[in-house]
């Protein structure tokens, strides 16, 4: 199979014009041309690290600070979900758990897997990995739903002394975590997924692949 790189061509990612591989900038749209983003994985890992760091306080600190006349109550993400479950709202608790715990963690895992799989050969078919990447990138924005809920609640329930809901420090951390995770996913160059196929199909070119690393 002949790839563009093998053919000595490089495609502009913005306007899809194909240029010879030596071209550095697209003459049509002026964007930079790169056959492979060689710093992609580095960026991926960096953003992923920040995202993970933000995710830890997002789960430790309270997400919501509920102040009533007599008391102030802090609830973390998981604590709030468990409380909801005790309160009988199992469906809502599941939604929160899925949106705020399962999906972010799954994103971390997926990105890390993708980044790793580019460097090491894995059994999974490149097609399914490409699909996984698309899903991660698509679903990333929906992780903000938790932050939106907190924002809406905070603006709705502001009865001064009687009752007030304020966003806790975890909401900011969670928002940062989501943002960084999305950046991490965007930093990934999906073309890297396919490079190994060539290496697998053509063991002779393995050396070349090694040099790219």
């Amino acid at each position, binding site marked *: 199979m002949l790839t563009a790189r093998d053919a000595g061509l490089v495609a502009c990612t913005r306007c899809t014009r194909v240029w010879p591989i030596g071209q550095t900038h697209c003459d049509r749209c002026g964007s930079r041309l790169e056959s492979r983003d060689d710093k992609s994985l*580095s960026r991926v890992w960096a953003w992923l690290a920040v995202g993970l760091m933000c995710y830890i306080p997002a789960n430790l600190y309270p997400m919501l600070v509920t102040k009533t006349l007599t008391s102030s109550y802090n609830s973390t993400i998981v604590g709030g979900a468990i409380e909801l479950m005790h309160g009988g709202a199992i469906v809502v608790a599941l939604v929160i758990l899925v949106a705020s715990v399962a999906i972010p963690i799954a994103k971390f895992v997926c990105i890390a897997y993708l980044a790793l799989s580019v460097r090491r050969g894995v059994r999974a078919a490149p097609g399914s990995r490409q699909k996984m990447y698309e899903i991660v990138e698509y679903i990333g924005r929906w992780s903000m739903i938790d932050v939106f809920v907190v924002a809406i609640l905070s603006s709705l329930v502001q009865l001064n002394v009687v009752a007030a809901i304020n966003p806790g420090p975890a909401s900011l951390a969670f928002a940062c975590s989501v943002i960084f995770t999305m950046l991490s996913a965007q930093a990934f160059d999906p073309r890297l997924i396919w490079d190994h196929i060539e290496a697998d199909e053509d063991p002779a070119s393995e050396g070349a692949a090694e*040099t790219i690393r």
Partner: protein
Amino acid sequence: MTDSIPPVPVTTARRSIWDRMSVVWLVPLAALFIALGVAWTAWHDRGPLIQIVFDDAAGVEAGQTDLRFRNVSVGKVEKVSFTENLDQVIVNVRLDPDVAPYVDDSSQFWVVRPQVNSQGVSGLETVLSGVFIEGTWDSTPGETKYLHLGESIAPLMPSNRQGLRIILRSTDGALTTSMPLMFKGVPIGRIGDARVSPDGLSVEADAVVFAPYDRLVRKDTVFWDASGFSISVGTGGATINFASLASLLIGGGTFDTFVSGSPPAEDGDIFRIFYYEADARASLFSRNNAATLNLSAVFEGNVAGLSAGAAVELNGLRIGEVTGLDGLIDPERFGNEDIHLITVLTIEPNRLGLEGDGSPEKAQEYIAGMIEDGLRARLATGSILTGGLKVQLLEVADAPPAVLDTAAEPYPAIPTAPSEITDITATAQGTLSRINDLPIEELLNSAISFMDNASMLVGSPEVQSVPKEVSGLIADVRGVVGSEAVQAVPEQLTAVLGEIQGTVADIRAMLTDIQAQDAVGRLLSTVDALQVAATNAGTALDGVPALIERINGIASQVEALPLNDLVTQASSLLSSLDALIASEEVKALPGNVSASLEQLRSVLADVQAGGVIDNANAVLSSARDAADQITAVAAQANTAMEGVPALIDQITSLTTKATELPLTDLLDQATALMASADTFVSSDGMQTLPADLSAALAELQGVLSDVRNGGVIDNANNTLASAAAAADQIAAAADQLPAMIDKVNALLASTETAVAGFNDTSSVVRDARDAMREVTRAAEAVAQLARTIERNPNALIFGR
């Protein structure tokens, strides 16, 4: 791989780590630094964790409850756990590092909870914020202590205040709960909650007097309870005393020093607090705070009336008082299972007047010696009025030997002698037991059930609504009373009463008149007589046809007579008759009758004009009867009149026969007679008679209708008067009758004279005589009628 594609120039990847690393890595590095910085700061700024042990940590929550100092949060509870044996609660508090050095041995901690008691509301802020732990410590930093014992209540004296700490002791209930300690009404300290002293005989409480007032408390200061009020009634009148309204409500102790030159009190000094100021003042002289000797005495039998505070007298001298009274069952000691009463006698040794310092030990020795000499304790009546008892220590001459039992619990026991209680106590007890036997509980139960019923009744909606209904009713009544119609009632009533008064007066006058004139009796008798008269008239008239028959018979007999002479006689008779008829009297007869009728009519008119009597319905019906009678009389008169044509026929036939006789004179005479008769009959009076009669009847009818239509009683008198007048008129009219009868008599006499010409003995004459007698009798009957009418004019009206 085709050759057309140029080989890709692959550069060797020999780049430095900086080329391979993205700048993006700066972001996680920065985040890492920030996180580490935050964590280090948090750890570094964290204060020490101290543990406070509480008996009860109600409301304390980990992560929520604050530790406060002067109401500023200086720490937070991190954990609440138990001690090893779960006896107490350990509260772990993370202190602020700033205050940590101050939390040393001087620290006190207690849980502030909302409290509402007699001294006000405290800790109200904790209702909303939840409880918090209040800490207090002095202002000198020291070594931080990590384990503290928490107080159950707020300490009397916070660590940051100076003052005097003393202990107050009471035997009479002056101490109860914590209350302020006041000096001349100003709170300058506090008395804490009371506790029972270890020996169980008194009550103690810690008290503090805050600086700078602590110097007011001296060794000889006396304390008393300023709460409540006292009423004293004496020769100086009644007085009521209380310290202040606040102390009256919430209580409070107060103190004063009546002795000067006393050294200041020290921490831990024990003072006695009295219930009354007077007791406190009196205690000054007994130096109550000196050591006392406690003895016990076991009395048998009833000790009712003995109470704490009762005097203990030694040969009449008060040396102490009873401070305790307890029941005791101790078979080993007393040999039976009866309950015995242990009395604790607190003796003040300095009252005994012993030499030296008067310590309790010396006093006990002295008393022990006296007991060996026969000193015994016994109960005696202290007050006859109240039945209170006192304990007397006195020497009993023949007492069995005994010693002071120093081993007895709780205090050395002094032997006792039988009590000498005045009978009045028994009597009083009897009275009291009778009072006791009264069925007060049943009474109270009944009263309670009654109250319940009453409250149920009162609380029932019907009764509840009664006042409203009553008020509504009153409002209605007020509206009715206030209406103009009702307002006008009194006036109308007055007018009606006036009218009634006038009416009664009228009735009275009328009745007086009726009584005076005996109107009713007269009326009744008049009516009776009138009826009799009418009856008689009817009877009399009944005889008229027979009379006419007889006259007919006479005429026929006359006819049958040899008429020559007769005709002559008849002729003379006729001429006499003619003369008679032609005479002025006969001619005047109709006029008289007419006048009489006119009089009657006027009488009736008077009767009508006089009005009618409403209440005389029976009278009216009788009058109607009378009218009927009169009608019958008139009918009979008509019948009688019907006989007149027959008579005239007879006379005519007689005349005809006479005419047939060759008696021209007679004929002429008869003709003249006829003419005279004609003249008589056609005279105005005779013709107007029926009209007058009908007019009279019409009048009567009008009168009757008027009477039927009702009238006024007032006029009954007038009516009677009119009736009397009518009777007078009738009498006057009847007066005319004798004259007429005289005329008839004269006529008959003439006739008799004429007939006398006939054969006296003949039957004709006899018959004529009989006829004449009949006529005479009829005339007499008419006369009798006239008299009757004269006597009872009202009989004409009433038909009797």
